[in-house]
């Protein structure tokens, strides 16, 4: 990991018209974040904090109303193959086989057929889908579809990969496996990753740094360093004290609480009391 800034997000604003009035509503306001080359940054925040809007702007699907985004010091202009995104809900093309889904970006890049095949072979192997090359998406499980989506965004070799809650739709077990697989793919490919999620554990488990975002308008509240060892597996760090401290810190930020020292072993809320209280009403 070098220290050169790969992505510089500088004071991004994005406003929408409120329904039925002329008032503007700011989804993002003065959003700034710098990501180093090869870094894995997660963005965590409550729903409606503009996370998806931010990714749309980053990938070039939407325009910002203010601010600028630099990649390698150059401002971005629309969508391009230097950036890839794994969208919510996979968005695989159902009419294309696994292989042809993965080759879509390469076709846009006008890579010759023979070479496309070599690349798709490599990525099918990387995400562990050998034997499923010619299957159609409807024939795959959720986790497998997710793998195809990741392979599709990596195949055309973007320098930066954005991921919009990619594991939100898979079951808990698959999710854990996918997180570890993603880390292993990231280690092998060395991509710069910005990963959006609303799960604190996921955010901390995967990241070098966690950007905590506040709601309306969406802006960075704090960036939390995740000082957990690499190479890392989420399943292995999840039960460590360090992990829990960082997770708690992020949780506090999201709860809008001032950071307080951890109160370990303090008086716990008696659940039975709470229930009885409720019942009394």
């Amino acid at each position, binding site marked *: 990991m070098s220290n050169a800034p790969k992505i510089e997000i500088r004071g991004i604003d994005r406003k929408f018209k409120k329904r039925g009035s002329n008032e503007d509503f700011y989804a993002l306001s003065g959003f700034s974040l710098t990501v180093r080359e090869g870094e894995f940054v997660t963005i965590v925040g409550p729903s409606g904090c503009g996370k998806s809007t931010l990714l749309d702007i980053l990938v070039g699907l939407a325009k910002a109303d203010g601010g600028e985004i630099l990649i390698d010091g150059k401002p971005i202009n629309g*969508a391009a*193959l230097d950036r890839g995104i794994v*969208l*919510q809900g996979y*968005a695989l*093309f*159902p*009419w294309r086989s696994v292989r042809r889904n993965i080759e879509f970006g390469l076709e846009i890049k006008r890579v010759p057929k023979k070479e496309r095949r070599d690349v798709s072979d490599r990525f099918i192997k990387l995400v562990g889908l050998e034997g499923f090359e010619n299957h*159609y998406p*409807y024939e795959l499980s959720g986790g497998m579809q997710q793998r195809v989506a990741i392979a599709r965004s990596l195949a055309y070799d973007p320098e930066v990969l954005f991921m919009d809650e990619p594991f939100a739709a898979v079951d808990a077990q698959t999710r854990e496996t996918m997180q570890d697989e993603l880390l292993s793919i990231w280690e092998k490919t060395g991509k710069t990753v910005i990963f959006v999620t609303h799960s604190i554990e996921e955010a901390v488990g995967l990241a070098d740094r966690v950007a905590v975002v506040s709601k309306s308008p969406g802006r960075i509240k704090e960036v939390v360093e995740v000082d957990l060892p690499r190479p890392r597996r989420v399943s292995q760090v999840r039960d460590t004290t360090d992990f829990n401290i960082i997770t708690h810190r992020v949780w506090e930020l999201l709860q809008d609480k001032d950071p307080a020292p951890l109160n370990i072993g303090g008086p716990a809320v008696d659940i039975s009391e709470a229930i009885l209280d409720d019942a009394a009403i």
Partner: protein
Amino acid sequence: MSALKTLRKILYAAIPIIAFFLFWQLGSRYIPRGVLSTPVKIAEGMWKELTRSEPERNMGGLTLLGHTGRSLWRIVKGFTLAGVVGIVFGFLLGTYFKPLEKLFVPFFQVCEKLNPFAIIPVFMIIFGIGEEEKVAIVFWASIWPFLFNTYEGAKRIDNSFIRAARSMGAGRGKLFAGVIVPATLPYVFTGVKLAIRISFFMIIAAELAGATSGIGWFYIQKKTAYKLALVYGSILFITFLAIVFNAAFARIEKHFLRWKENV
């Protein structure tokens, strides 16, 4: 599906059809003469017509197969033309020409509601009785399913497909050929199947209303000559042709939509 399962399915489907013809054959003896023909007589009569090598007198110089060819050729022309125009318009209205959509779609919806059978005499006046008129009738009636199904399909494309393609830098051409067309294809096929049915309805109607060749005309001639077996035979033959065409297109659909569940 296994071969055995397919065979069983065909067998089940055939039972009521065979029973129907059997009932017809046996029951017709209780019907007054001159109303109903029997399946055996129909088969005999139609076989004679289908294997005839020289056209009969007063049959327009064509055998039954010749008339069938004339009708099918009219269908092919009208249907293909409707397909090309309808699908192109459907795509344009459903995707890139939003302002025109508001202008034209309601108008086309009214056009579609016009009873196509009622329009036949008008087309006769405009085009004169002949080939153009028949092709125009088939075209007019079958363009709507093409147009509206393509239009609906193009409009309903899941936005996430568009986003995924655009995020990979797809330009307009790739977006159209690589996403919009394949995503709309299932709807287009719905239109194709409807248009086939309608084409067969319309060509017969047009030929009944006024023609000098075609299966519809053959049918009218046999009715005038009171050849009962051939009157019923013509109806069955027309139905059979429509089924064959539908099955052929179902095959094509299956080939193109094999990526879909349950096709």
